[in-house]
């Protein structure tokens, strides 16, 4: 019975129970599902990135009934892997079906001539031949296709994807149900007379102006470069090929026969001759006036001999395979640390370069006097300023290399060895992509299919074919995070350049410059934001009237949700152009504004005690606001003064080291030493001066103390300036050189000025993260128990002493957490760096240069990346790295917060 007299029904109504069950099920599934969805993000990113690190795959071999011989000089397959051809030394072309090896066509392409030299371009089907009568022919041997308009009866049964031999080729049915006939196409130009004797070696390349340049050696030992041009015949209106041969004045090195290999590099700037014993010579053929050899080099180790040499796509890299199974990549570089010996004694005319280039951070200037040059450090520089070096050494095999086939689309290369093994390498990353089981009977010739999806090896008995999937050989752990020696780079380096203009572009996928950029942006912005936000939070929570506090705090809070695209726009359109005009003023402001504020405080102390207390609220705040512009004004006066006295009147031209600004490095060192000197003086003040002052000032009046304080500030300022100046003088006068470093302050934190630079990003991104740090820090400071504060004040401590000794230590965990959250925000910020950082992926400490961050890189490149390819996955890896960076920051912050919380747990 109840008080109301009604009987209470014991059983809970059914609908309540049902609702309960439904709600529980719904909330649990919804809640768990949401949380799982969140975990999925990480899992999905990883699943996209993982294939990047999986090695290449190759299928079981398939035998194809095609025979090769030692006379095979060329074998190729088409991009659909339906047909292939072999070319023999006697000029016989054999076209065969890759399905069964059946011969489709066999003919002699040079019935009346004898081929003595040949060259096949790695980029496509183009080729050049030299003959024993001194003529050369240029042409293409490649594959072509036609769509059959009328389908013959014998092919009508074919379904999509099926293929069948037909006439001289193979027909395949495309997904759109068209019948595509794949066949060999041979087009050869007219024979052109290039020499009198038989031609021994030939190679060619195309200059940027589209003219072909041939290089030949003849049986009688001449070396000749032939510039081809096409002229229109006035009479017939037909194009006529005109050859302009130039003999290279060249004496064959003593005791040597004719060279065994000849290469003209892409763009036809230099020519390389190689002998099988490893000796090589390089010639400069940039201009039409031929020169002798500019450089000699040894390509092999002693005792080793070259068995094969081929150029990679783009013809910048020459691959050298040897009898000991070594495989090296050689290319030309441009050393940048060069002494231009114009005023030297005749014996030393010419350009010299430093043997040990790593010592110097930036190109050295031309020494003015020959006496200053230590020739033991130097070696002569080839006249074209280019040096041929071995950039990569691939995993050696234990038997002689027989044949090589470079890919026509990437820096991949398939090599066959005498013991029958076939290996495929990625040259840039020096990785071995796959290695097949050895082919019995050895391999004569090897071919990599145009789409890099098949490997074919021709042996004396039959041909082997493998299905091949290289996956992502351009991306290895080493190439994504380490140094890689790219073609044309001076040394192994970190570089990000994912796409290029030409098909022979070498993608550079090192994430290091991007991570560096991210860290640089974060560092500069936190350096600016942290002091501002933390100090502002301290003032708000400790010294600001509570009436003002709420409105000030909500104003700054609201700025936390200011779209960053707005800030980025302001940075690039308003702030960057403005700062460019006043770099010295800005640098000076870093010093003058705090100085003005400190001076203001000293002057405030001169007020009588009663006034100081009476005006302690808003008037004090207002006078702080007044001294800020005073500092700025001071900067506009000091900045140009500094510029004219230390930087030759123009800081920006000094920074970029331009020729008409000869100011020395003292000013730069001063800028760098200033913060250090400031710290030293401050430390001296706290640890030595302050106790002394405290003991002797006991008898002083307040006024005397205040006056002393003003004098102390001025003296300290002068001391800091003198210290910095003295230090800079000493460093500039040779101290740095004495310990083996560069005497010039440029090249480190200081360097040439770009409009969009780290300082601009620091300012604006600092502005973006100030609100978040401020809000969290202020929360932490105000949540310190009030009894602590009141106790301290009651014990006689001043508000500043309470803030410094009680409040700040107690809320340390919160302050630290606030900084970490700000740091996390800065790491991932995208729009500001995208718009204001210049987006060049360089690794420079220079605060006046731009950079590219992980996030900006993703934003610019991901929309254009092809889904699933290496670039796409590398960008996902960039996202994952970003994810990991913020995750680590958060975890670290959490850990530190726990430590602090435990320490202050009993408060």
């Amino acid at each position: 019975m109840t008080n109301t007299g009604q009987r209470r029904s014991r059983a809970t109504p059914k609908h309540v129970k049902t609702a309960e069950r439904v709600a529980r099920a719904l909330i649990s599934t919804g809640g768990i599902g949401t949380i799982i969805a969140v975990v999925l993000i990480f899992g999905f990113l990883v699943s996209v990135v993982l294939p990047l690190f999986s090695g290449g795959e190759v299928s079981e071999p398939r035998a194809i009934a095609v025979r090769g011989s030692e006379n095979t000089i060329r074998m190729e397959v088409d991009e659909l892997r339906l047909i292939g051809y072999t070319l023999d030394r006697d000029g016989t072309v054999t076209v065969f079906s890759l399905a069964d090896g059946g011969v489709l066509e066999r003919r002699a392409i040079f019935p009346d001539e004898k081929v003595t030299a040949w060259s096949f371009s790695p980029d496509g089907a183009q080729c050049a031949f030299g003959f024993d009568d001194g003529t050369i022919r240029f042409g293409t041997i490649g594959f072509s296709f036609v769509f059959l308009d009328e389908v013959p009866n014998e092919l009508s049964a074919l379904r999509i994807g099926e293929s069948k031999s037909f006439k001289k080729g193979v027909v395949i049915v495309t997904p759109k149900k068209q019948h595509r006939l794949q066949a060999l196409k041979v087009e050869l130009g007219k024979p052109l007379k290039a020499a009198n004797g038989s031609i021994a070696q030939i190679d060619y390349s195309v200059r940027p102006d589209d003219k072909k340049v041939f290089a030949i050696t003849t049986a009688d030992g001449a070396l000749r470069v032939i510039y081809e041009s096409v002229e229109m015949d006035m009479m017939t209106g037909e194009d006529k090929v005109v050859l302009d041969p130039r003999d290279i004045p060249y004496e064959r090195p003593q005791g040597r026969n004719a060279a065994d290999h000849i290469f003209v590099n892409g763009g036809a700037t230099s020519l390389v001759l190689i002998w099988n014993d490893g000796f090589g010579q390089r010639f400069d053929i940039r201009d039409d006036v031929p020169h002798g050899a500019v450089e000699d080099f040894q390509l092999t180790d002693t005792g080793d001999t070259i068995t094969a040499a081929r150029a990679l796509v783009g013809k910048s890299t020459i691959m050298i395979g040897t009898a000991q199974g070594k495989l090296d990549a050689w290319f030309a570089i441009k050393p940048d640390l060069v002494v231009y010996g114009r005023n030297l004694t005749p014996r030393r005319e010419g350009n010299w370069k430093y043997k040990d280039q790593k010592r110097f951070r930036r190109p050295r200037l031309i020494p003015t006097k020959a006496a200053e040059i230590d020739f033991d450090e130097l070696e002569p520089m080839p006249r074209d300023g280019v040096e041929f070096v071995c950039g990569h050494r691939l995993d050696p095999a234990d038997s002689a290399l027989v044949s090589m086939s470079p890919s026509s689309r990437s820096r991949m290369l398939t090599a066959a060895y005498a013991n029958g093994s076939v290996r495929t390498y990625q040259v840039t990353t020096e990785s071995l992509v796959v290695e097949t089981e050895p082919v019995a009977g050895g391999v004569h010739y090897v071919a990599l299919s145009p789409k890099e999806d098949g490997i074919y090896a021709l042996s004396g008995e039959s041909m082997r074919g493998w299905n091949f999937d290289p996956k992502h050989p351009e991306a290895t752990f080493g190439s994504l995070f380490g140094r890689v020696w790219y073609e044309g780079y001076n040394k192994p380096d970190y570089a990000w350049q994912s796409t290029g203009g030409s098909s022979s572009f070498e993608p550079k996928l090192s994430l290091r410059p991007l991570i560096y950029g991210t860290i640089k942006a974060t560092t500069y912005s936190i350096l600016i934001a942290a002091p501002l936000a933390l100090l502002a939070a301290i003032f708000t929570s400790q010294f600001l009237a509570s009436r003002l506090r709420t409105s000030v705090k909500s104003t700054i809070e609201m700025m936390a949700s200011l779209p960053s695209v707005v800030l980025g726009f302001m940075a690039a359109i308003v702030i960057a152009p403005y700062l460019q005009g006043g770099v010295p003023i800005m640098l000076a402001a870093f010093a003058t504004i705090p100085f003005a504020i400190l001076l203001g405080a000293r002057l405030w102390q001169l007020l009588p005690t009663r006034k100081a207390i009476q005006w302690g609220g808003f008037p004090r705040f207002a006078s702080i606001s007044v001294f800020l512009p005073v500092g700025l004004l001071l900067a506009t006066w000091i900045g140009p003064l500094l510029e004219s006295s230390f930087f030759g009147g123009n800081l920006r031209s000094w920074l970029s080291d331009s020729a008409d600004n000869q100011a020395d490095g003292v000013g730069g060192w001063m800028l760098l030493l200033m913060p250090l000197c400031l710290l030293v003086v401050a430390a001296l003040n706290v640890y030595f001066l302050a106790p002394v002052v405290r003991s002797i000032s006991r008898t002083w009046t307040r006024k005397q103390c205040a006056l002393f304080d003003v004098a102390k500030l001025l003296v300290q300022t002068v001391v800091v300036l003198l210290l910095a100046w003295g230090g800079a003088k000493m460093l500039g006068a040779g101290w740095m050189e004495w310990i083996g470093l560069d005497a010039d302050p440029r090249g480190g934190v200081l360097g040439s000025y770009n409009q969009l630079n780290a300082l601009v990003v620091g300012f604006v991104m600092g502005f973006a993260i100030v609100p978040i740090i401020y809000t969290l820090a202020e929360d932490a400071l105000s949540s310190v128990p009030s009894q602590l504060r009141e106790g301290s004040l009651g014990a006689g401590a001043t508000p500043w002493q309470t803030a410094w000794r009680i409040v700040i230590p107690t809320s340390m965990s919160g302050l630290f957490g606030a900084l970490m959250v700000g740091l996390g925000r800065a790491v991932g910020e995208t729009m500001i760096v995208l718009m204001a950082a210049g987006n060049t992926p360089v690794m420079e400490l220079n605060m006046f240069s731009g950079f590219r961050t992980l996030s900006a890189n993703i934003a610019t490149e991901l929309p254009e990346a092809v889904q699933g390819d290496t670039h796409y996955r590398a960008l996902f890896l960039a996202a994952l790295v970003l994810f990991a960076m913020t995750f680590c920051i958060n975890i670290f912050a959490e850990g530190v917060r726990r430590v602090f919380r435990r320490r202050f747990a009993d408060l």
Partner: protein
Amino acid sequence: MSSRRRVSSLFARGEPMVWLTGAALVVCLLMIAGLLTIVIYNGASTFWPKPLTQLTTHHGKTYLGEESQNEDYNPATAAVADWVPAKKRPAPEASVRRRMYRTGNYEVFNTHFTWLSDYEIAEEFEPRWGIVVERQEWGRFYGKPHAFHVDGKPVANEPAAVWARFEELHESVRARREAAGELNDNDLNDHENDARLERTSARLKDGADSDEWREADKVLQSVRKRAEEERIAIRRKTQAMQAENDRYELIVMMADGETKALKLADIVRAYLPNQLSLGEKWGVYLSRWGEFLSDNPREANSEGGVFPAIFGTIIMTLIMSILVVPFGVLAALYLREYAKQGTLVSIVRIAVNNLAGVPSIVFGVFGLGFFCYFVGVGIDDLLFPARVAENTPTFGKGGILWASLTLALLTLPVVIMATEEAISAVPHSMREGSYACGASKWQTIRKIVLPRAAPGIMTGMILAIARGAGEVAPLMLVGAVKLAPDLPMDGSFPFVHPERSFMHLGFHIYDLGFQSPNSKAAEPMVFTTTMLLIGIVVLLNLVALWVRARLRRQFEAG
């Protein structure tokens, strides 16, 4: 004795340090104020009609334009020597003021702007009859009304008469042009597309040359034929209207005396800036604002309005909040009320906290890879194989649905954290009271916990919306584009098009300021768009603050 204590307290007060902290706060506030002032000043003044100035240089060249900015610079000596006469030359290396005039007439001058140094100018005045013509294409035109042609014959020659004629006829011509614009063939194109897709799916299903394919092909041909006929009819109608419009031309004389005929139909707006009264200036100002807020963009987005961007931003934010709030609340309810509080739940909570700090671009990458390329391509393969075959992905690319989902994921932690906080702020005593009365757990949550937590949840939601509305980086990857005239919601079936790309105010700012071919001319528009975006975000934040204040009051009262 007493003096000593006072003295030591001067140093102990740490006045300089207090001043430093105060200065930091002042710097923060000044930066905020400065930013807002720059944006609001530039944004609000963009549409204000400026006076038109005519300038003559010492060389006798004349320019007519609106001043748009000025600066001091050090002219090259060679340039100075070029300015005549010699005695008026500035001292070498002296700083000289120069002004940038928007001189328009792009098809004649090939530039929108001209820099003129003060020393170059011989004469400068504001011509009474200077006219500013805003056109559909080629940007602004500056000159003087010279004549008014009807059918190629002048009907007015005096500026006043020309102007009167223009005002009389302009409105009707514009109305006719708009009417012609509405007679478009979009529907026809849609029909044709549908028929072609039918044929493609017949090919995929039954193969080319099958009976079904032939049937579909026949339908397509008939649709095409009909569409062609209708198109011709429409073209005839529009051509008639255009011919009527083409009769009217405004002849404007440029500063150098050359004349140029402008078709009345191409003129969006024209006014005589040097004759405007204050009220008329306001009229032009407000009409420009109206155009800005309600029209499509013109001229590579640098003129016209941003209506599609406003619409896109709002719709995307709306879909996002519809998605994020229920799931966020469910997750928070589960974590607080249903899950067993232990290590696992605290790990989950830390994970959610961490997720709030994950950069937004990472969510964009996830959205692109997962939603567009995985889910979207899956949907396409399942539902629209014909479109896949024609290589026009429907869901397998960036779209407003995927953008909203991505931002929903991004803001989920914010909502979860805010909701959790709100739920845990409900006193335990109230729950216990409810249980004591015999209420079930769900009844307690529904009747006691949720209503009391509602304002907190609302705050979280609005903060999430504010974050979502201002976020740009992930949108660049999952569907925001520079120009999308087809809105994600319109009158054509099925009215809502979640797969369409969309315009977004934030992306508009980025695109206009950095990708535009003529970013200098677009700059004022960027400021205005920025002001609009800041306005929206600040408004949402103010609402959040207001809700939070109300919530606190309610708790104090309760």
